């Protein structure tokens, strides 16, 4: 049995990790060309820096113990998020589950191999987010080698809790087939639930982090209470922290193992009864559902070409669960988060702290502020992946663009519309959030800033669209590949850096200029850049070069 589980896990894990191309198989080294290697590196540097800063601050106040509570809370939240998103795919919808079904594999073996695959993915997350903070904590507290042994035990044991718990929940939920009929509906429900949970946690954290009273001692105890409460709700976290802090090490190890033994028994009991049936039900759903006949009179309505074209792009974004989860969902979350933070800061922190209120009220909009706001908007735009995947999302259907009787130039602007619309929405949300927080910012300021944010949003979208047209990923097998293996995202980051640097330079030039004039000049400058890109596009179309790679 164990042999089969290892074999199945190996295959599934390889499938899961191969997409990232982290290792160069030929040279047997790390693949320096993979964008993920660089992203991981950047994240690792950022985590090292942040952990070090936090540890130094906590050390000054003699409160380094909060660090472990905090880091475990954060890592558990990250892992829960990751597992909730990937669990249903790994357990039910991934292609290899279908292939494994034809072999004489026991339910228990298949289920445990899926669990192990999830564990392996979680270990990578831990490697990125937990390993360095734990090492730094060890160094900072001058811990002995037993701490590091305990840290390894904690790292190995920690992900089992979210993985087994989420799997049990999904096994039960999938059993309720009447409510959850297909993959799309199911994933949508989870997304909504997920948004709810994350929002709840965000509010909880914001209330703690932006504490009503700036008094450090109170903030410190507030944070500790929040972390301890969250960790306590995750049963194994506090015992694991106790192991690291050398409090009743053996008792706590047995406590964790005891909890896992119970969870394992529950998982196997439920899994044996429902897992394979659940998979079969999921696969058979499409054919068994009652067909609803189409009402042609209602369904058919002549629309303008432009409207139909843009609508089709939005359908592609909202109708496909993977694209929705990877593109639209983060945008929704970003907008909600911005507003939640703004409201929490304004009505929780500032309302109860006169000093802070006075400080913020005394801040007036300057050219520097304008540049920071525009840079912030650009950073937010760089998270939108609509235009960078506009052609790739269509896959093989993208050739459609080339044989329909619609001018290429017109099609480019139509393709540019979805991200431009979303960028405008983000700009509005950002400016409203700024208006909420900074009392001195007037509605006139907001109205003057909006056009330049919109221009930058359109420009960003236009450039990314050109990149995707020039370097489309059309031959994908699953939608996940469109964004996860999309190296074009580098252009997004590079462009953002260019914009930020040019804004920093602009600030030096416009330092003593009236802000409205500065906004006007900046708007004209960015419109000019857009115009130049537009000329480039027209030339490329004329020379049949732009759409060359869409074949």
């Amino acid at each position: 049995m164990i042999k089969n589980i290892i074999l199945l896990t190996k295959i599934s894990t390889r499938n899961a990790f191969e997409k990232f191309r982290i290792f160069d198989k030929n040279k047997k080294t790390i693949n320096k060309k993979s964008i993920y290697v660089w992203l991981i590196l950047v994240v690792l540097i950022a985590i090292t820096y942040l952990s070090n800063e936090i540890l130094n601050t906590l050390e000054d106040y003699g409160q380094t113990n909060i660090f472990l509570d905090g880091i475990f809370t954060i890592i558990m939240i990250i892992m829960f998020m990751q597992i909730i998103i990937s669990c249903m795919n790994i357990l039910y919808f991934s292609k290899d589950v279908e292939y494994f079904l034809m072999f004489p594999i026991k339910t228990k073996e298949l289920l445990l191999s899926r669990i192990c695959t999830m564990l392996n993915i979680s270990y990578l997350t831990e490697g990125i987010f937990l390993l360095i903070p734990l090492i730094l904590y060890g160094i900072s507290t001058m811990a002995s080698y037993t701490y590091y042994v305990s840290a390894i035990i904690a790292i190995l044991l920690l992900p089992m809790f979210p993985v087994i718990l989420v799997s049990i929940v999904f096994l039960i939920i999938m059993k309720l087939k009447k409510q959850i009929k297909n993959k799309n509906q199911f994933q949508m429900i989870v997304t909504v639930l997920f948004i709810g949970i994350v929002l709840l946690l965000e509010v909880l954290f914001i209330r703690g982090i932006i504490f009503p009273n700036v008094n450090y001692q109170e903030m410190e105890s507030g944070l500790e209470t929040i972390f301890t409460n969250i960790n306590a709700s995750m049963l194994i976290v506090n015992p694991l922290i106790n192991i690291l802090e050398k409090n009743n090490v053996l008792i706590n190890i047995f406590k964790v193992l005891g909890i896992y033994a119970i969870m394992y028994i529950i998982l196997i009991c439920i899994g044996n009864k429902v897992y394979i049936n659940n998979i079969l039900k999921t696969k058979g759903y499409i054919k068994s559902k009652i067909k609803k006949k189409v009402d042609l009179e209602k369904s058919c309505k002549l629309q303008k070409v432009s409207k139909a074209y843009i609508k089709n792009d939005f359908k592609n974004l909202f109708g496909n669960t993977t694209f929705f989860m990877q593109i639209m969902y983060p945008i929704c979350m970003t907008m909600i988060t911005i507003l939640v933070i703004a409201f929490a800061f304004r009505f929780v922190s500032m309302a109860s702290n006169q000093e802070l209120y006075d400080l913020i009220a005394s801040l007036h909009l300057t050219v520097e502020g304008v540049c920071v706001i525009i840079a912030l908007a650009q950073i937010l735009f760089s998270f939108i992946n609509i235009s960078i995947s506009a052609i790739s999302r269509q896959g093989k259907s993208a050739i459609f663009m080339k044989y329909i009787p619609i001018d290429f130039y017109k099609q480019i602007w139509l393709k540019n519309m979805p991200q431009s619309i979303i960028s405008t929405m983000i700009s509005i949300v950002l400016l409203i959030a700024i208006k909420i927080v900074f009392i001195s910012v007037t509605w006139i300021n907001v109205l003057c800033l909006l056009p330049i944010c919109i221009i930058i949003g359109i420009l960003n979208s236009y450039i990314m669209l050109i990149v995707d047209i020039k370097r489309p990923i059309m031959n994908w097998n699953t939608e996940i590949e469109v964004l996860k293996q999309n190296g074009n995202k580098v252009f997004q980051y590079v462009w953002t850096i260019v914009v930020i640097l040019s804004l920093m330079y602009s600030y030096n030039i416009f330092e003593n200029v009236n802000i409205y004039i500065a906004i006007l000049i900046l708007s004209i400058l960015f419109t000019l850049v857009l115009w130049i890109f537009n000329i480039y596009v027209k030339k490329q179309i004329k020379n049949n070069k732009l759409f060359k790679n869409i074949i």
Partner: protein
Amino acid sequence: MIEIKNVSKSYIKGAKIIDNLNLEIKDGEILGFLGPNGAGKTTVIKMMTGILEIDEGDILVDGKSIKDEPYEAKKNIGLIPDSPDMFLNLKGIEYLNFIGDIYQIENSERIKKIKELSEKFDMYDALNEKIESYSHGMRQKIIIIGVLLHEPKNWILDEPITGLDPKAIYDLKIMMKEYAKKGNVVFFSTHILEVAENLCDRVVIINKGKILFLGNINELKEKMKENTSLEELFMEIIEDD
């Protein structure tokens, strides 16, 4: 009418995949495009429809150059691509409506045609389902319906028979004949020689980017040994090359 004039194409410099191709497809004609794998059939179709750039020469669709007046030329083309895996996120009816909007087909006309064509291809009951849930043959059928919806003067089909059930093949063949009878061009590539034999007014056999034969089946048989099957004739031409 489609005129292919001195068309050449190469993906790698110096290695022509299509070499000085000349072909005229008259109105009301069904022309079968035959050739082994890698002969250049799909490349020619892609150049005819504006998907691929033409290196040398030109292609005229009803007198409009696909190079110089692509918008006007494409208005008269209906393409069935080799892969029907398109717009999988849309429901069948959404896809047809999208095509209807792109080609600005009036509502009453659209409803009438969707009903007529989807019933003919046994697709009416599936129109409310997503294309991703369709079988290969059903996907092929929905693309065919989409093309016929705007009644292009020139119907170009890249391997249209693949994946279709016998009834759908029969219906499609009848439809192609009817379509040509109305004075339209039907140009299709296929590997199934019997289909070409039964359906085509003329056949073109290409290999390595060059036309090896152009004429009707009888001329082909006359040229080669008599009383041989089309399959043997095809093999003979390809091997001679």
